[in-house]
């Protein structure tokens, strides 16, 4: 199957691969998996006290489209508030990368990873307040 140029670009030069300190109270982690293809995605975001995402890293084991989707969202996430991040839709990711219908689930995976990371950071913030 032919990948779009944007997918190939992210696949060959993935941005922001790596991990952040998961024990940092300002770091949220989202882990998701797609049984349809066996892909696993880990997304970590670092949020400052103003609620802005300062850094984002990912680690994805999967096909080119899954890697490109996660690479793209790490670029999008930086500078956004967590609420803006939460509002990112998989359709926007799929459109930007020109994903074919059979690869739409890769963008779903990326959207779900963002939501999971945001949920994690919110849970950490709540824990901080109640502590």
């Amino acid at each position, binding site marked *: 199957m032919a990948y779009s140029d944007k997918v190939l670009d992210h696949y060959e030069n993935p941005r922001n691969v790596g991990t952040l300190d998961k024990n940092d109270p300002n770091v949220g982690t989202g882990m998701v998996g797609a049984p349809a293809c066996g892909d696993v995605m880990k997304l970590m975001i670092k949020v400052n006290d103003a609620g802005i995402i300062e850094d984002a890293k990912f680690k994805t084991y999967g096909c080119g489209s899954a890697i490109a989707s996660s690479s793209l969202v790490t670029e999008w996430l930086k500078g956004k508030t967590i609420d803006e991040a939460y509002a990112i839709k998989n359709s926007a990711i799929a459109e930007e990368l020109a994903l074919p219908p059979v690869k739409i689930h890769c963008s779903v*995976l990326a959207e779900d990873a963002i939501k999971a990371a945001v949920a994690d950071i919110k849970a950490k913030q709540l824990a901080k307040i109640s502590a």
Partner: protein
Amino acid sequence: MSSNLSSNLALSLNHFELFSLSPKFDIELATLESNFRKIQSESHPDRFVSASSAEKLQSMQLATLANEAYQTLKNPANRAKYLLELQGIEAISETNTAMPLDFLMQQMEWRESLEDAKAAKDINALENLLREMQQEAKLLQSEIAVLIDQKQDYTSATDATRKLVFIDKVYADINKAIEQLEANL
């Protein structure tokens, strides 16, 4: 015609019925194999050389169905998926990405070990990993057999099936890595 009638009927059967098996996860693989071969030979094009075009078409449809059914039932993950499908459950939905966190962490670790072993060209490590996956797959399969065949607990069976699909994927990727390393020896 009677042969017409029977292949017509066969086309409406589910995969288990087609091979005279009860719809269970724990099936007799030898029975599956021999009943598949039987249908294969009965629907072989050589037997329909002088048949009408309708009969030819039907025998071809039956051969195709038998093939698909055999591939589905032979593979444990596919068999589990199919059994759940018969219960109206879509185990592997593309929009459901929630998996138990500890399982995903474990997946990441296996994936990382695979990458490390590949980078180090360490066939031994890959083979150890492969054996680990085989064991994990076996455990899940016996779990699925109990959940579906004995407890009819389809919710837990769905979770276990989703895990099995992941394990199979890692297993296939490890195998691929081993083959690539061996080809370059």
